[in-house]
C-alpha cells in the first residue's frame, strides 16, 4: 500500500484524510479511507474501474455528498462545513450531462453564471472566450436537446468554467468527445493549469490519464496507486498506465 501523505505539493488545494463513505441504501462502502493531496495547478486524474468510488469521491469533494467519516479540506476550508464558500470557487461537470434540455446553450451557461453572481457584461465577455474554445459558437442559440452527446458534454464543461473557478471537477468529462477534439481539449486544460487552475478529472480511458500530472488509481474505494504517470510506470516496470491498471485490477472487476 502506498502512502500518499509522503507527497507534499507546494500549495495543496485539496486534502482528504481517512475519507469514508458508506451509503445507507445497501450499506455499500463506496469510499474506504481515502487520503488525497492535490496541489494548485495540477491536472489530477482519478482512475479506476466502474464502481471504484471515483464519482462518490468527487461528490464529497464538491460538498454535494456528505462523508460518513474523515476530513476534507478544499482551498484550506473544511468541506462540507464551509461548502457554500468553497462552491463559489469551484466548478463541476458531472458524469451525466446535467443540463436543462429545453434551454439554449447560452441560457444554460447564463443560468450557472447567475448562480455565481456574475454580471451580464462579464458573462458575455466570458461567453465569447469559452464558446470558440469549446467549438460551440454556432450552437449558441440552439436548444440543448438538439445537440449531440459530445456537444452536450462541452456545454456542461462551459457551465463548470464560466465563473473562472480555482478548481474544476470533470467527471468522465471527455466521454463522447472525438479524439481530435479530445487532443484539443487537453491542450486547453494544460493552458488553464499553467494559469493556476487545478483540474480534477475522473476517467477510465488510460491513455488519457497519462496526460495528467498525477494519477490516483482507485479500487473498491481505496487508493491503490498514486504518483506521476512516469513514477507509476517505472514502479511496475510497465510501458503504459493501461498495463499497470490491468495488472492491479486483476480479479477485481467491481460491479457497476
Amino acid at each position, binding site marked *: 500500500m502506498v502512502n500518499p501523505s509522503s507527497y507534499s505539493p507546494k500549495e495543496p488545494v485539496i486534502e482528504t484524510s481517512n475519507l469514508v463513505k458508506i*451509503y*445507507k*441504501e445497501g450499506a455499500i462502502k463506496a469510499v474506504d479511507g481515502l487520503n488525497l493531496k492535490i496541489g494548485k495547478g495540477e491536472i489530477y486524474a482519478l482512475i479506476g474501474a466502474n464502481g471504484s468510488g471515483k464519482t462518490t469521491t468527487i*461528490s464529497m469533494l*464538491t*460538498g*454535494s*455528498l*456528505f462523508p460518513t467519516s474523515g476530513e476534507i479540506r478544499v482551498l484550506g476550508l473544511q468541506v*462540507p462545513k464551509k*461548502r*457554500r464558500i468553497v*462552491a*463559489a470557487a*469551484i466548478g*463541476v461537470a*458531472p458524469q*451525466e*450531462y*446535467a*443540463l*436543462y*434540455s429545453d434551454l439554449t446553450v447560452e441560457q444554460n451557461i447564463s443560468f*450557472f453564471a447567475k*448562480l*455565481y*453572481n456574475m454580471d451580464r457584461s462579464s458573462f458575455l465577455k466570458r461567453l465569447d472566450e469559452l464558446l470558440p474554445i469549446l467549438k460551440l459558437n454556432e450552437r449558441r442559440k440552439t436548444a440543448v436537446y438538439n445537440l449531440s452527446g459530445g456537444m452536450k458534454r462541452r456545454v456542461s464543461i462551459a*457551465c463548470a468554467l464560466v465563473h473562472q473557478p480555482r478548481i474544476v*471537477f470533470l467527471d468522465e468529462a471527455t466521454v463522447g468527445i472525438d479524439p481530435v477534439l479530445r487532443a484539443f481539449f487537453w491542450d486547453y486544460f494544460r493552458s488553464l493549469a499553467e494559469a493556476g487552475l487545478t483540474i480534477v478529472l475522473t476517467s477510465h480511458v488510460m491513455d488519457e490519464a497519462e496526460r495528467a500530472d498525477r494519477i490516483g488509481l482507485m479500487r473498491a474505494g481505496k487508493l491503490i496507486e498514486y504518483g506521476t504517470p512516469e513514477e507509476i510506470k517505472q514502479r511496475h516496470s510497465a510501458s503504459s498506465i493501461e498495463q499497470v491498471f490491468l495488472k492491479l485490477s486483476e480479479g477485481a472487476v467491481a460491479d457497476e
Partner: protein
Amino acid sequence: MSKTKNFSPSRVIAVTWRVLTQIRRDRRTIALMIFIPALIMLIFGFVLGGQTKNLPILVDNQDAGYTVHAGQNSTSFNFGNEVLSSLQSDDQVKLSQGSFELGKTGVDNGTYYAAITFPANFTEVLILRNAGQSINAPVTIYIDGTNPTIEATVLAALQSSLQNTFGSGGVVLNEQFAFGGIQFSSLDISIPSVISLVLTQTVLLVSLIVIVRETTSGVLSRLYATPLSAFERLLGYSIALLILGMAMTGIVLFMGLGIFGAIVQGSFALLFLGAVLYASLNIFLAVFLSNFARNELQAVQLVPLITLTSMALSGMLIPVDSFPSWVQTLAKFIPMYYANKLFEGIMLKGYGISNLAQQFIILSGIAALFFVLAVMTVKDKMAD
C-alpha cells in the same frame, strides 16, 4: 441473417415484463398503488354512504293556536307547535327557535340554511279551511339556495312534517331566496367548487412535475455544488410557480365567468385574490410533497390522492354538516373546504372580506405552514 417475424408475441411479452419489473422495483410506487385507491374508496364510501342530515334551520312559531267550541266541550289546537315537534324529531334538520329576523340574519351569514315562520293565525286558518272555507295558511321560508341538495332536503323535511300534522293541502309555501333573491342554476352553484377543484388539480400537478423534473434531470446534484442554497432554490421555484399559478387562476376564472357566465355577486378582485391564495397554498404543498417523490410517476400519483380526498371531504359532493362528527372534524383539515366556502361566499352570497376573514386567515395559515414544512424538508445534498 434469420428471418424476422412481423409480429412476435415474445417481443410483446418482453415489453410487458419490462414494465412490470420496473414497477416492482419501485417500492414506493407499489405502496402508493395499493394505498391510494384503498384510501379514496374508503373516504368516498363514508361520505356517499351517509344521507344529508343535521342541517341547521330556525323556526319562528308565531301560531297563537285556536280553540274549537263544541257545546260544553272546547278543544285547543296549535298546529304550529305540532309541526315544530315533528321537525324536531326529524334528523334531516337540526332545529333552533328564535325570531324570524334572527333566522334571516343567520341564513345570510351561513349559520342556518333556512328560517321558517308560521303566522299567528296558522291553526285558525287550517281549522276554518277544514270547516269548508277556501283559504290557505301561509308558511314563509327564507332559504339558502346555494346548494340544491340542502335546499331540497330542508323543503322535504318541512313538507313531511306539515303532512304528518294535518295531511296534504292547506298550506301555501312562500319561498324567499337569500342572497339577492336568486334561484341559482345548478351551474352557478357548482362553479365555485369546480374552481377550487381545477386549481388544486392543475396547480399541484404542474408544480410537482416542475420540481421533480429537476431531480430526475441530474441538474439538481450539480446545483448542490454551487453557491445556490436550498432556500434560494425553493424561493425561486415558488415565485415561478406563483406566476404560473396566477395565469392558471386567470384561465379558470375566465372560463367559469366569461364562458359559462357564472354569477359573481361579490367583488371580482376579492375572488381573484382568494383564488391566487388557494393556488399558492397548493404550490407550497407541492414543493413540500416533492420531497417524497423520487420520480414523476410517484409525484403524479400524489395528485389524485389529494384532489379526490378533497372532493369527498370538502363538501363539494355532500354537505359537510351531514358527515358523522369525526368526518366533519377531518373535513376541517382539508384546505379545499375553506376554499369552497370562500368562493361560494364571494360568488353566490356576495360576501365581502368581513364575512370571509376566517377563511382568508385559515387559508393563509395553511399556506404558511406548507411553506415552512417545505423549507424544513428541502434537500440540499445528495441522498446518503
